[in-house]
């Protein structure tokens, strides 16, 4: 089966900007009567709009690509939904739901496609700041539909080293137990002048926007645990197209699947210096205090 990835990218871009974006923008900050999810995801908020938007994306995608599979945040069933080798849309209707509820202008839609479990198309659209970033395997990256010259950007950024980097960190919604402890201890080590001593950390509250920002050269890396495939699929494809790399959050996890649940995403380097990237990853891992584990 041959699949024209560029045309799928275009289809998803149009869907994001014409149909999904306007809903997200008009409803942001209007859903004050939200439910709080139960259990460890109690601060993770689900809104009716989330479900409505997922349905819209699913129906549009199905009409155009009837044979593709579909995995979405709202329709996901734990233990049942698995990623196969078939072409599969992996989507988050609204990434950054807490932002969406609070009207912090970094909620977005994140639309990805995997083939053979590899992210091959990625589209992220934030309607609040009107940023569309998209990519497909082998075709590079576009920002607001214009080709993105990532090589010049990387050349202007200088070498990738831990103590000169700005790192994205998000504590997520689970705020007790081992994973939360590991996260807090790791943040402290990354910041401390005795360990990582990074330039700074940033927290946008959206995994997809964070990965988009790494691809655009605004951030150097992103470390997180507890995310799902739909949070990272689109961003992963985009990041790979600009020389970035995604590995596991725990030391030694060099090869991981889209549904690994914990991730370290790192930007590309000038002239594709893989040694520099590898060193960055191992230096970063040396600040990880504990191990992130998710069922």
């Amino acid at each position, binding site marked *: 089966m041959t699949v024209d990835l560029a045309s799928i990218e275009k289809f998803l871009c149009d869907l994001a900007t014409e149909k999904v974006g306007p809903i997200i923008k008009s409803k942001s*900050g209007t859903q*004050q009567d939200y439910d709080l999810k139960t259990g460890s995801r*109690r*601060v993770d*908020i689900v809104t009716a709009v989330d479900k409505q938007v997922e349905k819209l994306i699913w129906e549009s995608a199905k009409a155009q690509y009837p044979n593709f599979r579909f995995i979405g945040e709202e329709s996901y069933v734990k233990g049942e939904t698995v990623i196969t080798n078939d072409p599969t849309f992996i989507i988050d209707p609204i990434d950054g739901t*807490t*932002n969406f*509820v*609070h*009207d*912090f*202008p970094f909620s977005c839609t994140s639309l990805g496609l995997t083939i053979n479990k590899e992210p091959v198309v990625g589209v992220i659209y934030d309607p609040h*700041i009107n940023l569309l970033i998209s990519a497909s395997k082998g075709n590079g990256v576009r920002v607001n539909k214009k080709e993105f010259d990532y090589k010049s*950007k990387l050349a*202007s*950024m*200088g070498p990738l080293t831990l103590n000169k980097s*700005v790192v994205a960190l*998000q*504590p997520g*919604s689970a*705020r*007790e137990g081992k994973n*939360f402890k590991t996260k*807090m201890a790791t*943040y*402290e080590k990354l*910041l*401390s*002048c*005795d360990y990582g*001593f990074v*330039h*700074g*950390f*940033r*927290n*946008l*509250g959206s995994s997809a926007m964070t990965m988009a*920002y790494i691809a655009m*050269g*605004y*951030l*150097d890396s992103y470390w997180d645990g507890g995310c799902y495939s739909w949070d990272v699929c689109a961003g992963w494809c985009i990041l790979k197209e600009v020389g970035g790399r995604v590995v596991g959050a725990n030391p030694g996890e060099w090869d991981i699947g889209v549904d690994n649940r914990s991730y370290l995403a790192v930007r590309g380097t000038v002239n594709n210096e893989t040694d520099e990237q590898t060193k960055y990853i191992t230096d970063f891992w040396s600040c990880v205090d504990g191990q992130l584990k998710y069922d």
Partner: protein
Amino acid sequence: MVLTMQELKNVENTFTELLLRKIGPLVKSHTGTNFRSYDDKSNGVDLVTVLDKNIESIIKAELAGKYPNFKFIGEESYVEGVTKISNDPTFIVDPIDGTTNFIHGYPFSCTSLGLAEMGKPVVGAVFNPHLNQLFHASKGNGAFLNNQEIEVTERTLILQKSLIALEGGSERTEGSQGNFDKKIDTYRNLLSESGAFVHGFRSVGSAAMNICYVASGMLDAYWEGGCWAWDVCAGWCILEEAGGRMAGGNPKEWVIPLDGRCYLAIRGGCESMEQKQFAESFWSYVAGRLEY
């Protein structure tokens, strides 16, 4: 001398015009291009560029041309222990707030122009040219985002349902003497399920942007220690004009000076009693006392 509402509005217009015409384009065109040319300040994390200094002198000259009798305090010309905020009308200016963002090209650097009179913020304008967000206000005249009046949606303010801004800052020495451990412990208390269990925190890396986001209700609060008057002066005026409140970072600091160094900004859109309860509840999670 007490400036009238119209005089304050004129200063606000001077600020916004200067930011849109001259300073914004300068900041935007140079961001992310100065990675190699910074001087290291404390611990090499607080980075200051040559451009920072140039922009401050441009602002100073422009404002002195129009308001020759007003005093001027800027980040780059400040002298610790010598520079004092008096009762006179005083421009308090940060040419590039979020210098780390500026150097790395992260689109949250901005210029913060404030005016204080009798030691209180009375005019403020903050411009982020990357996202094209211009926040501005003057005392008694309301607060605006890109010329649209900011009206924070009325809703309850509760710590557990809040989204707050927290920053790592540049002071990173561990140990009981400094503020780093107190900050990290406070963050842990705020996030933890057995603690405040807030909805989340955000860090954009610019104090002025954080305060403006609180002013417009995109964030519920911002807690910080270690900033300076020029980081907060403009935002503070915008915050108050949008119904928000500025308190201190340490417990019971209901009234603080502009250069208090520790701040708790709280959004409007609720009763002042709710703001008070929020502050008290927030302070109960502050681990130790921040000192600068």
